[in-house]
């Protein structure tokens, strides 16, 4: 029993080690060289540990953003309250999340091998975020859960989701890319489908977005660091100006946090820190996903003949680059509108994460354009902001408040919001 307990604590209880082990196994199965084995395993472990560091930078910036906008809207609503946060949650449940990702992927490969749904989900960073957010919902709903049961619950749900989601979007994918070789494997599937539906209902297919000329000056939108820093910068600065104008005791208290520094410079730096934190997290995810996915892909392609890879959402962007910009524009306008409306009605400060709005809005834009031209693309984008804004409110307030609302604020997105209540319901049944 001592050995079992030792393994439980030191391997399954330490997600970084478990992840390194999984990558090591994947590379070994593919008979990679010693040098590849070593670099792959270590990079996976380092990457996983970097995520926690980045997450705490983001949280610190959010802890300023939230009270700032609360003061702007005069909100009295509940604050985030007590919660575990990404680092503590990862330390406790990260092993289960990591293992569920691996087993979920094997279930996906198994389903692809023996059913007609021949899709292998390869978007590793979304595999990670979806699994950890769903784990956060489960623990929030039913409290502390046993390791094995959490792994079983998550891996079955993830395996099914990763197999079915690409199949649902594939009819439109064939239309957009003109062949059946690759599929979409991304959590923007729900808003992409919504975009296609709205485009069909309200759009005009003849008015194709690709007939438009997009100004060259919008090219910086392709760099996610720049969009995030810029938008958060603007939001922090607007918030700072309103606070400075208000002069209420609450506003003065917040402004005093800047100390000797100008409050505007302080606010701007916080905005850029938020962007920097995201960049650090993404670097960590890149390191471990970059080792995990090739390790898995080699295994999957050997086991499933005729498998179609389900890939990250930018695969569809080249087919309608203007619709990408229009979708983001629709999402951005929607996000600003909902920031004010949600603040004023349900007293929640929406964090408009540009990465989510850009990538998902763009997907909805491309799908919307395929059925409804320019209007479809804009509507798809707007619908994305609607799902993301209200979804974040429901997720943070009702589904994940005790566990990782900090992560949900910037890393949870469309499909997770749509599936969130379902996961909660299933968790109540299973645990």
């Amino acid at each position, binding site marked *: 029993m001592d050995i079992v307990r030792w393994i439980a604590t030191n391997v399954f209880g330490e997600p970084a080690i478990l992840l390194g082990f999984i990558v090591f196994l994947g590379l070994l199965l593919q008979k990679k060289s010693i040098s590849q084995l070593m670099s792959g395993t270590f990079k996976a472990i380092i990457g996983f540990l970097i995520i926690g560091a980045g997450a705490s930078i983001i949280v610190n910036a959010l802890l300023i953003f939230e009270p700032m906008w609360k003061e702007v809207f005069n909100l009295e609503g509940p604050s985030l309250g007590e919660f575990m946060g990404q680092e503590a949650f990862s330390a406790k449940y990260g092993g289960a999340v990591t293992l569920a990702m691996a087993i979920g992927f094997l279930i996906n490969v198994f389903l692809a091998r023996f059913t007609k749904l021949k899709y292998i989900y390869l978007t590793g960073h979304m595999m990670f975020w979806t699994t950890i957010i769903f784990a956060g919902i489960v623990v929030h709903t039913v409290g502390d859960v046993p390791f094995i049961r959490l792994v079983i619950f998550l891996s079955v749900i993830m395996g099914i989701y990763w197999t079915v989601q690409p199949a649902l979007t594939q009819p439109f994918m064939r239309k957009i890319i003109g062949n059946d070789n690759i599929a979409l494997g991304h959590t923007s599937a729900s808003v992409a489908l919504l975009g296609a539906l709205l485009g069909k209902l309200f759009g005009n297919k003849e008015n194709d977005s690709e007939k438009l000329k997009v100004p060259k000056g919008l090219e910086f939108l392709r760099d996610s660091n720049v969009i995030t820093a810029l938008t958060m910068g603007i939001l922090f600065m607007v918030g700072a100006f309103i606070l400075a104008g208000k002069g209420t005791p609450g506003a003065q208290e917040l402004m005093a946090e800047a100390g000797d520094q100008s409050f505007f410079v302080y606010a701007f730096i916080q905005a850029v820190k938020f962007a920097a934190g995201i960049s650090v997290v993404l670097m960590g995810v890149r390191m471990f996903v970059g080792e995990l996915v090739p390790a898995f892909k080699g295994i999957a392609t050997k086991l499933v003949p005729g498998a179609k890879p389900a890939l990250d*959402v930018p695969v569809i962007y080249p087919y309608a680059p203007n619709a990408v910009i229009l979708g983001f524009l629709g999402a951005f306008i929607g996000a600003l509108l909902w920031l004010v409306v949600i603040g004023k009605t349900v007293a929640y400060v929406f964090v408009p994460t540009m990465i989510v709005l850009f990538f998902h809005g763009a997907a909805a834009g491309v799908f919307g354009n395929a059925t409804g031209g320019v209007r479809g693309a804009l509507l798809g984008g707007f619908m994305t902001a609607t799902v993301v804004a209200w979804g974040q409110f429901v997720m943070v307030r009702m589904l994940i408040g005790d566990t990782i609302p900090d992560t949900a604020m910037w890393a949870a997105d469309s499909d997770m919001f749509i599936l969130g209540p379902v996961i909660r319901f299933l968790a109540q049944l299973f645990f």
Partner: protein
Amino acid sequence: MKILAVCGLGQGTSLILRMNIEEVLNEAGVDAEVEHVDVSAASGVEADYILTSNELAQSLQGHQAKILVVNNYFDIEEIKRVLSQNRVI
């Protein structure tokens, strides 16, 4: 030799490009280190070649590496063609 595969976020798409480049290099028997990064990080990383899309290539101009444009990250034939035209393989 070091090659960078670059996309906007440096997560999924550039990883696929990296795996496809590795496949092409492997087939040709060329040994190289291939890394995938986002476009901001790429401008600060030393490399011999950068493979990326036309739009991102604009913002990487001035990088000491040779920048090669790939239109379709999933087209092994195109990647092969671009690499051989530039004598990488």
